[in-house]
C-alpha cells in the first residue's frame, strides 16, 4: 500500500495496482463550464467490486465528477485529463462514446422510466443494438429485474407502463434497464433522493448485492447512506477531492480537518 499524504490539506488514498484490481481511475481531470473551472484535483482509483461513495456539499463537484466518468458531460462541459477504464483512456475523441456508456451505466436522481412497458424499458437498448430474439430478451428481462430485486413485484405486469410504477419500483426498473446492456461499472447520481426511507433501504440492499458483479460509484448527499453502504468514500469540496479513503476511516478518523467538519455536520 502506498499511502501518500498530501503536504497540503488533501489526502488521497492510492491502491497498489499490483495487489488490487482497479476498474477505473482518473488522472489530472479538469472540468470546465465555459471558461470557469468546476472540478479538478481528483486523482481517484476505483477498486473492482466495491461501492465508492462521493459525498460533499451542493456544488462541490461530486456530480460533475461522476457524470464525466461515462462522458455524460460531453455536450455540457469541457473535460480535460485522463479517465482510465480498464487501462484505456476513454476521454479521447476517437473512443466510441456509446460503447463507453454501455459499459459504464448510469442511474439518475429522479426515476426516469421511458413511456414504454416495463419489459420495453429493459429490452429497448438491446433492441436498438440488434438483439431481437424473444428468448434472449425474456431472459435478460427476468435476470436484470431479479438483480434489481423488483422481479416479484412486477413479473405479472411486465407489459404495463413503467411510468405507472411507484418511485422505488421505477428506480429499480431503471437499474435493471442499465444492467440489461451488461455494464461493468454502475454510476448512480443520488439515486435515493426521490425515494421514501423504506424504498431507500431496499435500494441499498440491492446495491450491496450488485457489488458482487459490478463496480459501483454513487453520489449521495446523505452521509448516513455513504457510511452504511460504501467501502470507500471521496469527500468533495469546492470542486476538489479533499479526502479519499476507506469509508470507515473517513467517518471515524478523517485525516483532513475539513472532512471532519463535514462528516460531523459542522457545515454543508
Amino acid at each position, binding site marked *: 500500500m502506498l499511502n501518500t499524504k498530501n503536504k497540503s490539506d488533501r489526502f488521497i488514498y492510492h491502491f497498489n495496482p499490483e495487489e488490487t484490481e482497479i476498474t477505473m481511475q482518473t488522472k489530472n481531470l479538469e472540468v470546465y463550464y465555459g471558461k470557469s473551472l468546476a472540478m479538478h484535483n481528483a486523482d481517484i482509483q476505483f477498486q473492482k467490486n466495491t461501492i465508492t461513495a462521493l459525498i460533499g456539499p451542493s456544488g462541490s463537484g461530486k456530480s460533475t465528477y461522476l457524470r464525466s466518468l461515462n462522458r455524460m458531460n460531453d455536450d455540457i462541459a469541457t473535460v480535460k485529463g485522463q479517465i482510465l477504464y480498464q487501462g484505456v483512456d476513454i476521454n479521447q475523441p476517437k473512443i466510441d462514446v456509446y460503447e463507453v*456508456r454501455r459499459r459504464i451505466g448510469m442511474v439518475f436522481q429522479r426515476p426516469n422510466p421511458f413511456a414504454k412497458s416495463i419489459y420495453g424499458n429493459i429490452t429497448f437498448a438491446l433492441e436498438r443494438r440488434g438483439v431481437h430474439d424473444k428468448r434472449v430478451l425474456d431472459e435478460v428481462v427476468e435476470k436484470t429485474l431479479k438483480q434489481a430485486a423488483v422481479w416479484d413485484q412486477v413479473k405479472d405486469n411486465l407489459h404495463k407502463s413503467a411510468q405507472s410504477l411507484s418511485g422505488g419500483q421505477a428506480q429499480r426498473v431503471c437499474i435493471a434497464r442499465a444492467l440489461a446492456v451488461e455494464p461493468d461499472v454502475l454510476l448512480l447520481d443520488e439515486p435515493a433522493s426521490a425515494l421514501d426511507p423504506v424504498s431507500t433501504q431496499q435500494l441499498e440492499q440491492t446495491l450491496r448485492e450488485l457489488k458482487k458483479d459490478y463496480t459501483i460509484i454513487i453520489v449521495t448527499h446523505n452521509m448516513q447512506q455513504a457510511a452504511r453502504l460504501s467501502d470507500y468514500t471521496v469527500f468533495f469540496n469546492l470542486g476538489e477531492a479533499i479526502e479519499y479513503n476507506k469509508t470507515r476511516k473517513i467517518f471515524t478518523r478523517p485525516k483532513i480537518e475539513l472532512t471532519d467538519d463535514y462528516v460531523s455536520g459542522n457545515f454543508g
Partner: protein
Amino acid sequence: MNRTQKQSQIAILLLRLIAALVVLILAFLIGYIFITGLPNVSWKFLTSPAKAFTAGGGIGVQLFNSIYLLILAMIISLPIALGASIYLSEYAKDNWFTSMIRTAIEILSSLPSVVVGLFGFLLFVVQFNYGFSIISGALTLTIFNLPLLTRNIEESLASVSDDQRQGGLGLGLSKYETIVHIVVPAALPGIISGVILCSGRVFGEAAALIYTAGQSAPALNFGDWNPFNIDSPLSPLRPAETLAVHIWKINSEGIMPDLTQVSSGSAAVLVLAILIFNLSARYIGRKIFEKMTSMN
C-alpha cells in the same frame, strides 16, 4: 368586514361576471347556430350534392372535399412540422439562425389567411399551373397550418422531462435514437392534441381556399376511386369547394330558393365538426397519456 376583504370580494365577483359573459357569448353563438341550423340537417342533406338553382340541395360533395383536403394538408404538413420542431426543440443552438427561424414562424403564423390564399393562388394556381385544385388548396393550407403545428409540436417536445433524454444517452444510445424512440413517444399525447386542434382550424378555413381550391364543386363519381380520373373523388387536380367556402359562396352570390336553410344547415355541420375536433383533442390526448402511464 374590513375594506380589504370587501375589495377582494368585489374583484372576485367582477371576474366571475366577466368569465360568465365569455361563456354566455359562446353558448349564445353555438346555441343560435344549432337551433337555426340543425333542423335542416338530415342524412340526405349530408350526402346529396348541392343544387345551384333549385331547392333541396345538400352538402355531400363539400363535406367530402373538406375532409379530403384536411387529410392531404395534414399528410404534407405533419412531416415538415415534425422535422422542424424536432430541430428547434432538440438540436438548434441559441444563435441568430435559430432566432431567425423562430421569427419567420411567428410572422408566418400571424399572416392573414386571405393573404396566404392569394400567395397560394399566385404560386400554385398560376405559376405551377395546378389550377383551382385540391393540390393547390392542400399546399396553401400547409403554409397556413405549418407555423401553428410546428409551435404545438415543439411545445410538446419541450415539455418532455430532460431526465428522459439523459436516460437514453446513459444507455449508450445516440441523440437521434433518443429523440426518435424516447422523446417523441413521450410527447405523443401532446402532439396528437396539437394535430387535432390544428385540424379544426384547417377544417373551418375559407379565405385561404377561395382562390386556391376554388369555389366550384363538380359532381363526383363515388364509384371511381382512381385518383388519376378527373371526376374521381380522390383526384388531386379537380377543383374542390369546401364546406366553409360553400357557406361564404352561397351567402354572397347564392340564388337557390332555400339559401337560408342550406347556409344555416352547413354552418351547424361546420361548427359541430370543429367542436368535435376540439373536444376530442383533449379527450384523445388524455386517454393516450393515461394509457401510457397506467397499469391498464
